[in-house]
C-alpha cells in the first residue's frame, strides 16, 4: 500500500505587543508586513484608549492585505486600583486585548484578580517595581491573566542591567510555572529593526531558562488562546461562558 506523506501542521505564531508610531501610517504598514514576512499569523497592536474605531479598522484592512490578523490592544497604566476598575468598565468592550502595566503593588494585585485583564506587564528597568511574586501568581492563577514578558529590553540592555533583568525573569518564570500562570512572550518594540522571528523570540527566552516547548507555547498557543477567548466574548452571539446564540428565527420562539 502506498504511504501518504502528510505535512506536519505549521504552528501559528503571535506577537501581542507591537507599539508602532500610529501617526506614521507608512511605517506602521511596513511593520505589519514585516511581521507577516517573519512568520507571525497574528499581531497585537497597542492603541491609545481614545483612538478612533475607524483608524483601527483602517489598520485591520492594511493587515488583511499583508495576510496577517490584527488584534487591538490597550495598555493601561493606572495609579490606583479604582482607576483601573474605571478604565476597565470603559474599555473592555472596545479592545480585544487589555494589558496592565503594574507600577504599584495595589494595582498589580487588583489586576491579577480581575478576570477582565489579559496580560500583566511589569516595568523592565525599575526592578523594585516587578511585583510578580507568589501572592500575585496565586491571584493570577485563579483569574485569566497571563504574565507578559517583553523581549525588547533583552535586546537593548547590556551588562549589569541585562544581568539583573535576566535574574528577575528567571525568578518570575519559576513562580509563574509553579502556579500555572501562562507566560506570553512579546516583542514590545516600536522599531522595525528590532523585530525578530517567533523562534528567535523563543530562543531568547532560553536566557532565563524557559524550556523550548514552553517558550514556543508562549509565542503561539498562549497568546492565540487569549485572542480567541476575547473575540468570542466580544461577539454579538456571546451570552455567557459556554452559552452562545446559534440561530435567530421564528423556529426558536
Amino acid at each position, binding site marked *: 500500500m502506498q504511504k501518504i506523506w502528510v505535512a506536519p501542521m505549521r504552528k501559528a505564531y503571535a506577537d501581542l505587543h507591537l507599539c508602532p508610531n500610529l501617526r506614521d501610517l507608512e511605517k506602521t504598514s511596513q511593520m505589519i508586513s514585516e511581521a507577516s514576512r*517573519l512568520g507571525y499569523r497574528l499581531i497585537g497592536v497597542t492603541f491609545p484608549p481614545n483612538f478612533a474605531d475607524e483608524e483601527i479598522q483602517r489598520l485591520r484592512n492594511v493587515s488583511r492585505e499583508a495576510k496577517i490578523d490584527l488584534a487591538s490592544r490597550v495598555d493601561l497604566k493606572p495609579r490606583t486600583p479604582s482607576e483601573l476598575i474605571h478604565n476597565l468598565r470603559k474599555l473592555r468592550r472596545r479592545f480585544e486585548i487589555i494589558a496592565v502595566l503594574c507600577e504599584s503593588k495595589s494595582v498589580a494585585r487588583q489586576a491579577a484578580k480581575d478576570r477582565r485583564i489579559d496580560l500583566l506587564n511589569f516595568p523592565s528597568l525599575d526592578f523594585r517595581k516587578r511585583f510578580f511574586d507568589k501572592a500575585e501568581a496565586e491571584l493570577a492563577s485563579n483569574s485569566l491573566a497571563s504574565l507578559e514578558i517583553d523581549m525588547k529590553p*533583552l535586546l537593548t540592555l*547590556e551588562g549589569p542591567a541585562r544581568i539583573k533583568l535576566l535574574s528577575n525573569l528567571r525568578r518570575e518564570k519559576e513562580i509563574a510555572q509553579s502556579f500555572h500562570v501562562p507566560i506570553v512572550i512579546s516583542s514590545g518594540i516600536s522599531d522595525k*529593526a*528590532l523585530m*525578530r522571528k517567533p523562534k528567535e523570540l523563543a530562543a531568547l527566552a*532560553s536566557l532565563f531558562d524557559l524550556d523550548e516547548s514552553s517558550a514556543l507555547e508562549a509565542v503561539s498557543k498562549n497568546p492565540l488562546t487569549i485572542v480567541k477567548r476575547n473575540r468570542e466574548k466580544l461577539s454579538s452571539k456571546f451570552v455567557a461562558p459556554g452559552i452562545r446564540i446559534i440561530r435567530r428565527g421564528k423556529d426558536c420562539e
Partner: protein
Amino acid sequence: MNKVRRRYLALEIKAAKMTDSKEFINTVWSAILKLYGEYGASRTGLTLINYDIAKRFAVIRTLHSAVEMIRTALASVTRIGDEPAAVHIVAVSGTLKGLYEKTKQYC
C-alpha cells in the same frame, strides 16, 4: 570517538549598510561571548563558510549541540559595526548541499 555532528545555518542580514565578513563574524562572536562567555563560545565550533554582501546572505557552520545557543546569540545582534542590523536564520541543514537546496532563492 563519536562522529562530530554539525549544522549549517543560512543567515539573512538586514542592515542599511553591509560591512565586510570580518566585522560580521566578529559581531556574532561578541554576541556569543556576551551571553555565554568564553567557555560557552568554545563549545559552538562556529565557522563562517560563505558571506555574500550583494545578496545580504551568509552561511555559518556550528556544532549540532550549539544551534540553539547560536540562534539566541544571533537574535541578540542589534548592530553590525555602527549600523543597526538584524540577523535572521533562514534555514538549518546537516549538509551544505541540503542548505543550498532549501535556500535556492538566495543562491
